[in-house]
């Protein structure tokens, strides 16, 4: 058991190390997210009241697109240099290694988005009482975004030109997260109950964390064959 956890930890640490080697690339999603979200107020009239109504959707759509940025390349380097062959042949369950890699990606891509979200929310005039719900929703929803993006990346890793395909593949998996994540914030804005959407997001998160590493591992194995 320990050897399995050690192996998963090694995968996790390797991802972080690789991100540190290329800091510019690693911070791209965060920069993209901030720029995208802050473009909306620029496009609206100053102090437009509509901004506040759109804020939940803006934050969530920006997070979604940021999570998709570069997800296509997630497994490509490891497939091309033969690393994934070694993962497959190691005496450790392959889905666990894939899960560890995706978990590291969550920390690298999504965690900064959550940290930056309150600032973005303030810039979008979101009411303070809704910010907590926004963060909680992002906490539950971003693993869904990252893991389903990873699954789509695994599905297309053997296909040469899959860049345009990825949004279609992940849309069905990501749009429930968007609906309930933004829905919870909207409910909080007008004082409605936020429990339902948050519970649903949590359910989606648990389901994604459980099933998608298996599915992604299967898709990768298929692409390698």
């Amino acid at each position, binding site marked *: 058991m320990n050897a399995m956890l050690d192996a998963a930890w090694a995968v996790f640490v390797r991802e972080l190390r690789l991100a540190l080697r290329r800091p510019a690339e690693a911070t791209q999603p965060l920069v993209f997210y901030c720029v995208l979200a802050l473009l909306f107020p620029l496009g609206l009239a100053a102090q437009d009241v509509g901004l506040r109504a759109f804020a939940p959707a803006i934050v969530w759509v920006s997070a979604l697109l940021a999570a998709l940025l570069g997800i296509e390349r997630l497994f490509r380097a490891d497939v091309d240099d033969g690393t994934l062959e070694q993962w497959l042949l190691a005496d450790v369950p392959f889905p666990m290694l894939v899960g560890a890699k995706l978990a590291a990606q969550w920390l690298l891509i999504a965690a900064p988005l959550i940290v930056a979200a309150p600032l973005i929310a303030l810039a979008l005039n979101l009411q303070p009482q809704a910010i907590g719900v926004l963060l909680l929703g992002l906490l539950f929803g971003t693993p869904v975004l990252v893991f389903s993006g990873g699954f789509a990346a695994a599905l297309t890793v*053997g296909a040469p030109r*899959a860049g345009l*395909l990825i949004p*279609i*593949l992940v849309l*069905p998996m990501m749009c429930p997260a968007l609906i309930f994540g933004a829905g919870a914030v909207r409910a909080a804005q007008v004082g409605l109950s936020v429990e339902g959407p948050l519970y649903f997001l949590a359910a989606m998160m648990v389901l994604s964390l459980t099933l998608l590493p298996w599915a992604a591992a299967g898709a990768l194995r298929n692409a390698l064959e």
Partner: protein
Amino acid sequence: MWTWFHRLASPPSFYRFADRLAPWLLGLGLLLLAVGCYGGLFIAPADYQQGDAFRVIYVHVPAAALSLFVYVLMAVAGAIALVWRMKLAECAVVAAAPIGASFTALALVTGMLWGKPTWGAYWVWDARLTSELVLLFLYLGVIGLNQAYSDARTAARACAWLALVGVVNVPIVHYSVQWWNSLHQGSTILSLEAVRDPKISSSMLWPLLLTLSGSFAFFFAVWLRRLQNEVVARERGANWVRDCVLQAPLAAVSNEQSGMTGPELDPSMQSRQGRQRHGEPRGAD
């Protein structure tokens, strides 16, 4: 029984089986659809609430039922393909996707045409409509994924994974009208309660059952034909494809031109050459 299934799973016997079954299914399906549509449009009475607008039901309900059924079918075939590595099941997944997508699109379009006169809006973002739209995107994903790969087998198995993951959406579509307050109505015929206690007058029900069963027969006919094409494309190097599919045109061509592989050749030679000629060119390993 089991051996029968086993035999059927081999591409040549499946091909011959489908060849015999598909025309009958197609004829039956078209007949049922024609009678059902006539009954629905001309014989069934108008609804007490919706008047003639309710007649969309005779297209909308079969399309919606098939959109869910086909996806479940794809997921089951996908699971079989992944677990037992059965080529026919791989073909079944890819062959079903465009048909399922068509039915889903049909359900969405007829639903919109129905929604305007009854609800007062073409589209609302309620749970049923949204999840059905998601289903359409899942189908499009499978189709796109299948075309993204140059190798048919890898493509089909990737599609099988996507079908398996996406099947989570099917119960959400079906139960959305129960789980959430939605503008969409509840199930008229596809629920246990409705079987115990029919929610539709029998004079309106029988055409619906006819178009429903006709749509299923039509789907199976088209699916079998698509499966045949898929199987032949995948097996194009094999002997049986030469023998039972390509024989006539190929024999004609080869006799006219340069007299290549004719039927007069030694059978073992023929198989070897057939494979090399029709198989993909050997690439690098």
